[in-house]
């Protein structure tokens, strides 16, 4: 059975169950099926067979989710467009993918100059859910990530990538069934949104989304407490925001807490584990280029595996190969630090129409006797003797100071945070007036006297590692994915 058929069967099997809860409104699988079927009918009428990529205005409503399944069941791929994104960026995405038709559930059509598929009123017969036959190599979605040049890079993911992903995800040991209540906290332009709605639908479970005008972390708290969420994939910054309120959290129902997207600090993880003794904590890792996630670590309070206070990202999932390389693309031995590279059935076919980037990011090397294609993640890591991967930060988070000393910014952060007693801090590398690299520290707090911190850092780190400037910021800026915006923090020095 292919992915579309599996999804279609699950929807048909669970018609009376609740599929989505959006803005406190419940939608059954029957509602979802009717909407999918209605949108398919419009696509069949208005979109030609040779048009493969369909734009999708990334709203938070049942029609938008239904549109994704409708597009997939028609054998096409979707390209999400965030209506709040700068127009220029969306225009660029539309141009790159040659989009002519856009599914839109907005009251006022966002792109009136295109072939608009209005999904709001679309309603069809639930018997028309049989997907069209598509090749597994066909593209399921193209997501755009920010490129260093300012032009967004497209990452196409195929249906065979998604099938391999589902296989790997469930092989990791997570069980979801029709009784589960799952969190979908991500915007649809962010890759892990796909697993957050697709996996529950595959199992007939419930998906809870977060309305755009709500505060994410406190809304998640209410979903955990009141709606008895059983599965949640979150970014670690949610834990930072919730931390002052941990004593209000107490739910026996949350079976799985998964974290992705940035380093997971062990101290806050410990506290989360204490508050929610029934939850299995998993630190999962993966870039968009390798279909959302590809390694995972199950937190064990009695055998914590960490580096510089950050939890391990564990072992490669089924069908994934991991190696660590040096600057000459040579494979390093166990324990050596270098760039993490990934291979296997989750890898994207390559950046969308971007031969230069593909040349930079992908390479072939001999691995286990076979010529294998690897993707360079840009993440600095090492693999320990048990095969667990330690995430040290971005390669570009590694700074070379005072003429060649290598400094891992995560290490500076570790000691700074120890000296700050639970106050959050971020270390950045910035270029000073004479063009050399220095280390700066930003503390998330109002101003206070730094004597104690300075003494502590001097006691722990060699002089070249000590931040040469320290600044305060009451709240850290977050980027569109909800991660701390380190680039932004670098600009204050």
């Amino acid at each position: 059975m292919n992915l579309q058929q599996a999804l279609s069967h699950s929807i048909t099997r669970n018609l009376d169950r609740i599929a989505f809860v959006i803005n406190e409104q419940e939608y059954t699988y029957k509602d979802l099926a009717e909407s999918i079927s209605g949108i398919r009918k419009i696509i069949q009428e208005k979109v030609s067979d040779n048009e493969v990529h369909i734009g999708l205005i990334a709203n938070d409503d049942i029609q938008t989710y239904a549109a994704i399944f409708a597009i997939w069941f028609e054998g096409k791929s979707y390209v999400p467009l965030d209506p709040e994104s700068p127009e220029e960026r969306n225009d660029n995405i539309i141009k790159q993918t040659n989009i002519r038709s856009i599914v839109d559930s907005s009251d006022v059509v966002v792109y009136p100059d295109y072939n608009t598929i209005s999904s709001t009123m679309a309603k069809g017969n639930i018997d028309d859910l049989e997907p069209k036959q598509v090749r597994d190599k066909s593209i399921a979605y193209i997501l755009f990530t920010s490129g260093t040049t300012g032009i967004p890079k497209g990452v196409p993911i195929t249906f065979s990538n998604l099938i391999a992903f589902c296989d790997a995800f469930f092989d990791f040991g997570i069980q979801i069934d029709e009784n589960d209540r799952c969190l979908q906290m991500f915007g649809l332009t962010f890759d892990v949104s796909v697993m957050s709605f697709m996996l529950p639908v595959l199992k007939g479970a419930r998906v809870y989304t977060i309305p755009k005008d709500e505060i994410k972390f406190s809304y998640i708290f209410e979903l955990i407490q009141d709606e008895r969420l059983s599965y949640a994939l979150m970014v670690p910054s949610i834990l930072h925001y919730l931390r002052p309120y941990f004593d209000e959290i107490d739910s026996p129902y949350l079976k799985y807490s998964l974290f992705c997207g940035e380093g997971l600090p062990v101290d806050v993880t410990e506290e989360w584990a204490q508050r929610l003794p029934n939850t299995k904590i998993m630190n999962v890792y993966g870039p968009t280029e390798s279909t959302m996630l590809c390694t995972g670590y199950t937190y064990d309070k009695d055998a914590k595996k960490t580096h510089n206070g950050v939890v391990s990202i564990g072992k490669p999932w089924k069908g994934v190969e991991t190696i660590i390389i040096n600057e000459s693309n040579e494979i390093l031995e166990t324990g050596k630090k270098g760039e993490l590279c990934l291979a296997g059935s989750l890898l994207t076919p390559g950046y969308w129409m971007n031969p230069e980037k593909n040349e930079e990011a992908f390479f072939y090397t001999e691995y286990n006797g076979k010529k294998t294609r690897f993707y360079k993640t840009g993440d600095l890591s090492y693999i320990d003797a048990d095969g667990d991967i330690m995430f040290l930060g971005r390669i570009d988070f590694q700074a070379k100071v005072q003429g060649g000393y290598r400094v891992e910014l995560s290490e500076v952060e570790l000691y700074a945070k120890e000296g700050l007693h639970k106050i959050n801090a971020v270390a950045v590398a910035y270029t000073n007036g004479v063009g050399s690299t220095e280390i700066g520290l930003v503390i998330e707090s109002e101003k206070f006297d730094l004597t104690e911190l300075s003494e502590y850092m001097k006691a722990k780190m060699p002089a070249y590692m000590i931040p040469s400037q320290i600044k305060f910021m009451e709240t850290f800026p977050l980027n569109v994915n909800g991660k701390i915006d380190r680039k932004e923090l670098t600009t204050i020095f």
Partner: protein
Amino acid sequence: METTEIKEKISEALESVLGHSNFETNDELTAQDVDGWDSLSHMMIITKIEEQFDIKFKLRDLNKLKNLGSLVSVIQGKI
């Protein structure tokens, strides 16, 4: 504490975080009506208000703060 006095203090908090006072303190005022009141400044505003009234919001309170009127009544319930 009188409603007007509470509103005045909230207004001070907003001004000190946002650096302007281009808003009217009526009950229907929401974050969307005020320049610069986004998810980032929201936490700073909340912290400032907690300090000014010497109160601590519960997580549940945070989701109830839909407009200025609801903020005033949550504060009244705490002081």
